[in-house]
């Protein structure tokens, strides 16, 4: 049995309770805020010696001085004299610990006097009730980090049933930017989940929205440096220190449509980057994401629904104000239909068409027509669609959607549509995986607590409140938890905290933490986290390893973003991975023959279809051009007139 490191003390002024106790230690004791300790009671209760587990939440130190003035007098007012004192004053280290667990749990009594021991690995498992889900045969633990105190090095496990459903779900990460908390933690945790998620619970994948910089752009590239201490942590937690094996990137084109709008545009990394392009059909369903409340009154909403159900992809025959038949499949088709309809109504002096007032039609035309402009690069005028592989998601794969360089409207549209599609597929159980993690950073922006309601916020709330039943789990992150909608963070059963800003810690959400715990949170080192989890009655501090993937900053240096190029180089870059024989000269030739819109449409269709013969497929999508033939520089002679038929009645 190990040596006790402290003794429980209680006074009338500072009594012990069932949830809190006090103990003192020697001055050189390895106890600090966050240390887990065990108290062995000295008298049996109901025939059992009570064992109490607690975590240190506050510390006090004082001497027998009754007034600071006594120390001043004792050293003649000179601090320099203090160092020469032959004796140091008696000093105490007094700690307050919050109870994590009492065994036996009934009757629940105040913590008794007793010896205090540093918790060993088994104690930590018992204290955090991890023993319930680390059983042989029913192991649902996901390692989140290592708890360290003194000689104890104990893996802290989260319960998959409470992290990824169905009991509880969702994870929220808070922390200051730039201190390797949010992105690093989620990268590490995804590795851990992919390694330890029980096979019996089915398949799992992740969709990550890269909302800023190159943070998530190199998940398939190995870290440039991994310390031995990091490798030791990986080994202890049974996770391979390697980048993700299956990663797919998705990014829309830039406004010109020449190249992909992502920091992962270096040619060496384009093999798993897929364009994200949507057409009218895909966008119309989520038009309300792009329209504000003034735009989207009941009348406009009804017209948009009508267009979605009765116009898009339907044949509208010539009738009433319409001067011709229409089959609307693209934004260009829609604009032509609007133009024809409005001209017809003006011509016939009609004020409404199929109950829709002309003013409403004009307004909706105006709002819908500029979507392709506002979301250029993502929304195309053609009907070509390049999307995430809904229905064929792979187990343990990460799908990164890079929206970092997009306008806010486009980001919202992408987020809303992808999450909606994911939810639809999960409801139908045909996504390809049983569980899906959606990672969203900057939750302050997408689900703010004090801003007006938006479509995106409603979706996040919906995931947070109902996602776990579907297997849709939200991993979210933000700098200021206090500014995120309460129901989003409140529904996150697990919460991670990195180093926090003092102002943030002063908000009411942190008042449940002791001042010492808040101070520790404000000074956490890189690689340290505070964890809250349904099984843990108090927050726990852990260390986690540096992610085994290339960091965004290093990746951006090693794989510089491709410079914006002309149409020739864009064709060459996009099509060469499909057909290595394609040359720049060929691309230049194509650029000389066709206009940019046509080339881009053909390029998009080719990259989407990924045909065996990319060059032929590409050319097949272009209009035929019959070059003008010239003969030795002379103008070709006109063709002779046909001879008159025999017996022509009009013959003069």
């Amino acid at each position, binding site marked *: 049995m190990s040596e006790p490191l402290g003794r429980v003390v209680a006074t009338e002024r500072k009594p012990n309770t069932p949830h809190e106790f006090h103990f003192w230690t020697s001055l050189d004791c390895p106890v600090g805020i966050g240390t887990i300790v065990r108290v062995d009671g000295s008298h049996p209760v109901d025939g059992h010696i009570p064992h109490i587990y607690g975590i240190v939440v506050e510390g006090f130190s004082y001497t*027998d001085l009754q007034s600071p003035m006594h120390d001043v007098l004792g050293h003649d007012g000179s601090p320099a004299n203090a160092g020469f004192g032959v004796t140091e004053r008696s000093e105490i280290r007094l700690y307050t610990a919050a109870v994590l667990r009492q065994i036996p749990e009934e009757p629940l009594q105040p913590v008794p006097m007793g010896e205090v021991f540093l918790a060993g690995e088994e104690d930590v498992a018992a204290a955090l009730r991890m023993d319930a889900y680390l059983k042989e045969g029913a192991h649902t633990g996901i390692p989140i980090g290592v708890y360290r105190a003194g000689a104890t090095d104990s893996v802290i496990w989260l319960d998959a049933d409470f992290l990824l459903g169905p009991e509880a779900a969702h994870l929220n990460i808070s922390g200051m930017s730039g201190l390797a908390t949010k992105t690093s933690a989620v990268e590490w945790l995804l590795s851990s989940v992919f390694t330890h998620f029980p096979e019996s619970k089915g398949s799992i994948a992740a969709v990550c929205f890269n909302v800023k910089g190159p943070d998530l752009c190199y998940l398939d590239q190995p870290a440039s440096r991994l310390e031995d201490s990091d490798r030791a942590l990986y080994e202890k937690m049974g996770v391979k220190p390697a980048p993700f094996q299956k990663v797919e990137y998705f990014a829309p084109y830039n406004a010109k449509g020449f190249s992909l709008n992502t920091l992962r545009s270096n040619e060496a990394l384009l093999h798993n980057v897929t364009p994200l392009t949507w057409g009218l059909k895909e966008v119309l369903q989520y038009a309300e994401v792009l329209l504000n409340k003034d735009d989207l009154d009941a009348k406009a909403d009804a017209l948009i629904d009508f267009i979605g159900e009765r116009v898009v992809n339907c044949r509208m025959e010539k009738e009433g104000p319409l001067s011709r038949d229409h089959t609307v499949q693209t934004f260009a088709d829609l604009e032509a239909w609007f133009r024809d309809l409005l001209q017809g109504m003006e011509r016939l002096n009609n004020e409404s068409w199929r109950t829709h007032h002309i003013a409403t039609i004009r307004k909706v035309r105006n709002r819908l027509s500029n979507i392709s402009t506002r979301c250029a690069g993502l929304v195309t005028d053609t009907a070509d669609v390049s999307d995430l592989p809904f229905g064929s998601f792979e187990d343990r794969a990460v799908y990164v959607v890079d929206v970092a360089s997009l306008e806010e409207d486009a980001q919202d549209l992408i987020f809303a549509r992808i999450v909606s599609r994911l939810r639809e597929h999960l409801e139908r159980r045909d996504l390809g995986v049983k569980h899906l993690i959606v990672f969203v950073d900057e939750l302050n922006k997408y689900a703010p607590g004090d801003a007006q309601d938006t479509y995106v916020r409603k979706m996040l709330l919906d995931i947070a409140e109902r996602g776990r039943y579907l297997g849709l789990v939200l991993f979210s992150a933000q700098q200021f938890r206090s500014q995120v909608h309460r129901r989003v963070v409140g529904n996150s059963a697990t919460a991670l905290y990195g180093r926090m800003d003092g102002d943030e810690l002063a908000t009411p959400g942190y008042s449940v933490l002791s001042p010492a715990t808040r101070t520790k949170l404000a000074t956490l080192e890189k690689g340290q986290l505070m964890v809250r989890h349904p099984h843990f009655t108090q927050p726990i501090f852990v260390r986690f390893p540096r992610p085994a993937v290339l960091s965004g900053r290093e990746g951006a240096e090693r794989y510089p973003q491709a410079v914006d190029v002309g149409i020739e180089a864009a064709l060459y870059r996009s099509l060469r991975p499909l057909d290595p024989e394609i040359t720049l000269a060929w691309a230049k030739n194509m650029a000389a023959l066709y206009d940019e819109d046509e080339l881009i449409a053909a390029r998009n269709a080719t990259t989407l279809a990924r045909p065996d013969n990319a060059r032929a497929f590409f050319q097949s999508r272009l209009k035929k051009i019959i070059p003008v033939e010239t003969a030795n520089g002379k103008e070709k002679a006109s063709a002779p007139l046909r001879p008159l038929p025999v017996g022509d009645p009009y013959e003069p």
Partner: protein
Amino acid sequence: MGHRTGVSGNADDGIELNGWPGSPHEATRYILGHLPECDPVEDFPRQTERPVHGEDAPVLLPPDVIEGEFFRAIHVADPRTARGTSGFAGFLDGTQDVRVVNQSHGIPIVWATVSAAIRARVNRRLVAWTGRPPIVSRRYYIPFRYVDGLHSEFRSHPQVIDTAREDASGKVPSRHPAALMEAAVQRVQQDRESIELELAEAWCASETATLFVDGSITGSRLVSESTRAVGIVKSHRRLYADGDAFRTLVGLRAGERSSIFRVAPRSRYPVASWYVRMRSATGRDALFGLVRVEAAIAGDLQARADEISRWIMAEGSPLALPDARWDKMAYGIRDTEEFLRAIS
């Protein structure tokens, strides 16, 4: 008593102490089983102050100077630079807590706790000396002859002391409660000194460094002759300075000591003694910061007196506040008193 780890009872007890009261409340109840007719005293008045006794009246005595020819002041240290070096490796002190817990027809039944401990200094911090555990003794002090109905087995208990025995001259204390209290307190003081000297002797027999003893060392031959113990007396009811010597004594400045003189109290053992002014008495009473040192008459006394005086000066920091005697008290002694308060 005796249940606390690392604390021993009086070495002479040699008895089973289970069930013996450990607090005044327990003592009040315990004696009711052995003296049914006594009445509990509710608020347990403390008798910590030493009663004024004929022999303890303030007195001036001529010093028997053994250093030079007359009593003079000798500069030993600059009080501003004397801090930092001390040869004391341990601090010995004792405490007593005397309570009247019951009375039997006006006769006080006294219950007292005496304790003593040595705190050793290790790396500038004070810890319990491992050579001998602290001693805590709890006893009843009862004038047998004035208390009727005391069970005989209780009378013969070694932890029950008769405070009305005849002294060497055949005198016994009167039935006056104050006289009986004086007799009880005197006996408690003897017990306390006894356990203090027991620890001091153990130190002198086993250690090579010097022990700081709070009080006189003349009660033990071994201790009074050992160079490993130095007694520091803070009370000055007997001042070894009369006439010119008195003026010299009250004129001592901080960092000065007096000449060495010989002290040989009746029924005790002789030692060398001198006064040291630990702190400046300017603006204070004449005895502010003044202690009397007792050391064995051995070796180069003059050099030892200088050295020990400097050690005592050094022990003035940290201050022993909030103790009222902080001007004369070493912090090590205050620490020992606090320690004894915690364990007794």
